[in-house]
């Protein structure tokens, strides 16, 4: 109103003459504002309801899985059909072994590829590799199993932990390549330029400057890949199959035999009509989720320590 008074004092036409200032007030009685309010409420409710499944899963795992959890499930072998008791010790060992093997194969390949990508950003090959990795990210996990079946199981003549590990490798590779490349690129260019200025060869720059600086980011990628691989079932179903026995016999690991894993055990036992097996499936699911979450959280804790570009 002050503006309006000022204007009339100056003998000019009042630009706000036709304006009803009440219209500008924020009121829920106006359709536009009401619509705004309703949509805001709706989006809040929808977002929170998206989290309901998460809490439901966690609650069921803690309740049904926690009930059955004891030392015995870690040390005993899976029970037969109507047997009581039992555990899934061999499945834990199998999961850890196969993921470990996959890490041992994938990490060197993935990091070397990432170094190439970061060092030759614009080259045609780098573009192609990056694209191939992105395509592999969305690669259905069951097809990794089909491939490992065709390439390893058919050639070696049997289901094995090795075939399972190879199938997991395909799923881990793109995560490790893409996150490591990002981590190496994030190294401040002044550090790289300083190394080159001191006369370091590209290899020395990579080993003494880029990799040590990028290691938190690389570890994040590796841990996230482990978290994904540990939970995968489809690629193991017909590569590692399942086994009711311990992996170690006569003092060494049997890499070329069918191998148990937590994920396949959950799948097999979930469909059984026996209460004992279903309970074990829930306990195994709890252990598996804890393993996966631990890997996830450790990975995330590394990512906070990255050197920032300035």
């Amino acid at each position: 109103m002050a503006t309006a008074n000022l204007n009339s004092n100056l003998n000019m036409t009042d630009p706000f003459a036709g304006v009803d200032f009440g219209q500008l007030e924020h009121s829920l009685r106006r359709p536009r504002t009401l619509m705004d309010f309703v949509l805001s409420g709706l989006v809040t409710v929808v977002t929170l309801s998206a989290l309901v499944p998460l809490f439901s899963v966690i609650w069921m795992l803690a309740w049904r899985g926690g009930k059955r959890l004891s030392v015995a499930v870690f040390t005993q072998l899976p029970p037969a059909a109507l047997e009581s008791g039992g555990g899934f010790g061999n499945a834990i060992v199998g999961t850890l072994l196969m993921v470990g093997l996959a890490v041992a194969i994938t990490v060197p390949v993935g990091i070397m590829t990432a170094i190439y990508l970061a060092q030759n950003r614009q080259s045609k090959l780098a573009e192609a590799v990056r694209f191939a990795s992105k395509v592999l990210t969305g690669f259905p996990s069951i097809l990794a199993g089909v491939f490992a079946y065709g390439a390893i199981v058919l050639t070696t003549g049997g289901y094995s932990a090795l075939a399972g590990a190879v199938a997991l490798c395909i799923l881990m590779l793109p995560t490790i390549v893409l996150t490591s490349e990002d981590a190496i690129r994030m190294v401040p260019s002044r550090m790289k330029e300083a190394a080159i200025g001191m006369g370091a060869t590209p290899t020395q720059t990579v080993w003494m400057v880029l990799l040590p600086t990028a290691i938190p980011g690389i570890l994040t990628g590796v841990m996230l890949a482990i978290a994904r691989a540990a939970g995968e079932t489809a690629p193991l179903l017909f590569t590692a199959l399942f086994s009711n026995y311990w992996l170690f016999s006569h003092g060494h690991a049997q890499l070329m035999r069918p191998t148990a894993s937590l994920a396949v055990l959950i799948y097999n036992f979930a469909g059984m009509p026996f209460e004992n097996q279903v309970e074990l499936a829930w306990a195994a699911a709890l252990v598996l989720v804890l393993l996966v979450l631990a890997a996830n959280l450790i990975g995330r804790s590394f990512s906070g320590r990255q050197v920032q570009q300035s």
Partner: protein
Amino acid sequence: MASKSLAAPVANSAPGALFAIRPGEITQAPSRWQSMVDKAFRGSSFLFACCTILLVTFIVFRITVSAIPAMRHEGLSFLSGRVWDPNTAQHGIAPQIWGTLYTSILALVIGTAFGLAAAVFLSEGYLGQIMFAILRGFNLHLHPFWAKVPDRIEDLLRQLIELLAAIPSVVYGLWGIFVVIPLIRPACNWLHLKLGWMALFSTDLSGPGVMPAVIVLAIMILPTITAISRDALTSVPPKLRMAAYGLGATRWETIFGVILPTASRGIFGGMVLAFGRALGETMALAMLVGNSNRISLSLFSPANTLAALLANNFPEAGPEEVSILMYAALVLLGITLIVNIFGAIILQQASRAAVE
């Protein structure tokens, strides 16, 4: 850390010694050994990079070669056949292709509705506004600890939604069998009773079926949609938002009129990638979809998908059936590769457009 260890020798030497350059000590061309190592390392990193491309080619090659006998034998009628019966050697995957597309499209619709809402909620600072209003009520909005709470909660919420993606699909399958199916069964059967004349509700839910599979699938692809959409929404230039507010648009008029259209390409790319993920998802579907080879519009009838077919039949397949299953795998590979490459290209263009 590395920069410090590199800088250390210079810092340790006395200032005067810095200028006393002795030949061969500070400035020195890389020795023969060093340049050899350099060449070898660069060569090997090149080879490893080639490995990734070779791997993709080899996967496609390996599956195709194994599928060739079945392709010769079954031909294209494999894609249109409706019967899968190993005993009579009849193999058709039309029901599986239908089931794969039907469940994935339904899951995409539900997942997008929830995922996009979550992305908008997380990128538009809603929580911050609500929390700020509450904190101001207690006169704590400038407090050093409490003032940071809204940001922290928003971060926590984002991470919780990402956590949905971390839970293994077999655990979702287990949860679906023991929680989702008993929970939705009464509602589904009531719908069948009242609205059974509609094709969507023409059968009752007797256990596993399309509906529980779609619900679980939607939960599994939601984090992908939320993460990518949120990136697209936050990369909308702030000046567009400010201009819309300046013209007097309400928050939602801004979102619908300016922000969503600007971010639409990124959101669409995320949807395509999520769709690709839904197509290839195996375990939750193998456990929840019912593994019955029929083509039906009903949401409650059991169905089958390509991935579930592979998961169920591979372990006990003989040499001939393996080839037939490889053919089915090739079909799945074709569908997912097309969808994924399409999605990757869209996202690449979207990020390029954002940079410009």
